[in-house]
């Protein structure tokens, strides 16, 4: 039985860091940098695809229950072997490449997408002292990597030489580019409050406790608005329902990865879910306090456990929204991004700046909350009255 002394608690909390240092002691000095890099990266490479496998099962069961049916329940008890069945299926399916497709671009598109998806994890602080690279501009790195995904989608959609895939790729890139601005602006408020672009500093700024409540940014008015806006933009960035028109099955039959089968399709699937986890991870880092515990008397639980619990909560939220809300049409998507999300994020930046200049107390809490609520109500009423929910006018390019 493990005695929960403070040194033991810290040992369990830092167990991965201590294991790595112990293993490094056995490596000769000449191979130390390379081995250190590999040992830092390996847990990410193992853990997140494993979480991906579990999430596919969770999603199918969860969606099934929301839709009043069982999910997969034949492969193993309660369908727990379904991810393994899916893996075997995707590995053994025939890899069909269209005859007129651009062979090399078609081959490299899923590779680039998976590389970009994995690169994004290098700045996420998963636990105390557990970040792969502590970049001083980590948040900027994360948003820069998102740009690589768009190039990969273009490569996939174009090289398939198919109308559906090109249309899907155009829609997907337009959607991702449109929602990137609200994503960055919504995440900017956390950077403003901390004064640093480093993800580790942002988490450490939120790991303080006042009385026994945490200093997470989501508990401030601008942080809450920023979190909600960030999650909406993140749903759109990973092409998830209700923003999944570029890849909806009943609309465009999988859009830009329509001509991919077998393992390449599995790679796209993996990259999409990894992108979802990475964006959730950044949301946790920026707004939900990263690896810090929700109450000061719960800090004995290991820090990585809190990170993964928050990730689980956000993933369940994603699945819930997918099962509940209908799909948005393309022009509704674009209107939402440019007419609602962009002004709302800009006003949120105002509120966050005002927060810093007000004296600490209930006054600034009320002031910022009222400002944001009034802005939200005026914006939504104003947009509705202008008839943006009427029959749309087509305007074709010449």
């Amino acid at each position, binding site marked *: 039985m493990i005695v929960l002394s403070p040194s033991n608690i810290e040992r369990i909390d830092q167990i991965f860091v201590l294991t790595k240092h112990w293993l490094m002691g056995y490596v000769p000095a000449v191979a130390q940098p390379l081995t250190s890099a590999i040992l830092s990266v390996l847990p990410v490479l193992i853990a997140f695809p494993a979480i991906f496998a579990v999430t596919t099962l969770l999603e199918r069961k969860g969606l099934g229950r929301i839709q009043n049916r069982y999910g997969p329940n034949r492969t193993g008890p309660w369908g727990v072997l379904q991810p393994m069945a899916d893996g075997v299926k995707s590995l053994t399916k025939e890899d069909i490449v269209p005859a007129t497709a*651009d062979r*090399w*671009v078609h081959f*490299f598109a899923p590779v680039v997408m998976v590389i970009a998806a994995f690169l994004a994890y290098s700045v996420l602080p998963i636990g105390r002292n557990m970040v792969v690279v502590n*970049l*001083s*501009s980590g948040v*900027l*790195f994360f*948003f*820069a*990597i*998102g*740009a*690589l995904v*768009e*190039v990969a989608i*273009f*490569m996939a959609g*174009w*090289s398939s030489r198919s109308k559906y895939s*090109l249309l899907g*790729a*155009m829609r997907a*890139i337009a959607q991702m*580019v449109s929602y*990137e601005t609200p994503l960055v602006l919504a995440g900017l408020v956390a950077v403003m409050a901390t*004064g640093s*672009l480093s993800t580790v500093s942002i988490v450490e700024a939120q790991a303080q406790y006042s009385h026994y409540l945490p200093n997470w940014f989501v508990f401030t008015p601008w942080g809450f608005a920023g979190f909600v806006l960030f999650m909406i933009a993140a749903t759109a960035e990973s092409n998830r329902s209700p923003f999944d028109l570029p890849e909806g099955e009943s609309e465009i039959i999988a859009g830009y990865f329509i001509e991919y089968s077998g393992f390449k399709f599995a790679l796209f699937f993996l990259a999409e879910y990894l992108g979802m986890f990475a964006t959730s991870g950044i949301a946790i880092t920026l707004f939900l306090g990263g690896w810090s515990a929700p109450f000061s008397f719960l800090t004995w639980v290991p820090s990585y456990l809190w990170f993964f619990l928050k990730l689980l909560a956000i993933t369940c939220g994603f699945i819930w929204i997918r099962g509940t809300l209908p799909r948005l049409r393309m022009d509704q998507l674009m209107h939402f991004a440019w007419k609602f999300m962009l002004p709302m994020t800009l006003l949120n930046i105002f509120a966050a700046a005002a927060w810093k200049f007000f004296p600490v107390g209930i006054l600034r809490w009320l002031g910022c909350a009222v400002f944001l609520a009034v802005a939200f109500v005026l914006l939504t009423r104003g947009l509705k009255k202008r008839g943006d929910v009427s029959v749309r*006018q087509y*305007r074709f*390019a*010449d």
Partner: protein
Amino acid sequence: MTLVFLLLAAITILGFGAAMSLRNPVHCVVGLTLGLLGLAALYLQLGAQFVGLTQVLVYVGAVAILIIFAIMMTRSSESAEDQTYSHSWRAGVVLALAVFAVLGWAVHFGSTSIPAQNVMPELPVQTIGDALLHRFVLPLEIIAVLLTAALIGAGVLALQDPVPETRGPR
């Protein structure tokens, strides 16, 4: 001239060379993206984190996407059948070598005027932000006005035809 620098330089030159010499425009765009990523990696290797990451964000995330949209919207995807090199390529090579010689001479003889520093100066983002808002605030505002003008101009260009008259519901 470490191994990392040589690898990154090779990737960059390969990417830009592919962007210049391949026939299919889509392949050229992919090569251009690779070259831009190599440049960003070179910035990061020199320790300029902010510049390197902004290079990825702006060049790969915006400029390359813009070129991609231009290729997707027009039908310039087919490879050119005839020779894509111009007739006066020899004069072009001579000119390029002359420009390279001038640049190399300027860099080599200009570098002695900067005192050699053994320690790289730390350039956190805060220093760049301070400089932008204190010393360079006027260029910043002018660039902001320019970008706004470009945005409005693009919107006006896209809105060429007037909105058609709406008919009431029958």
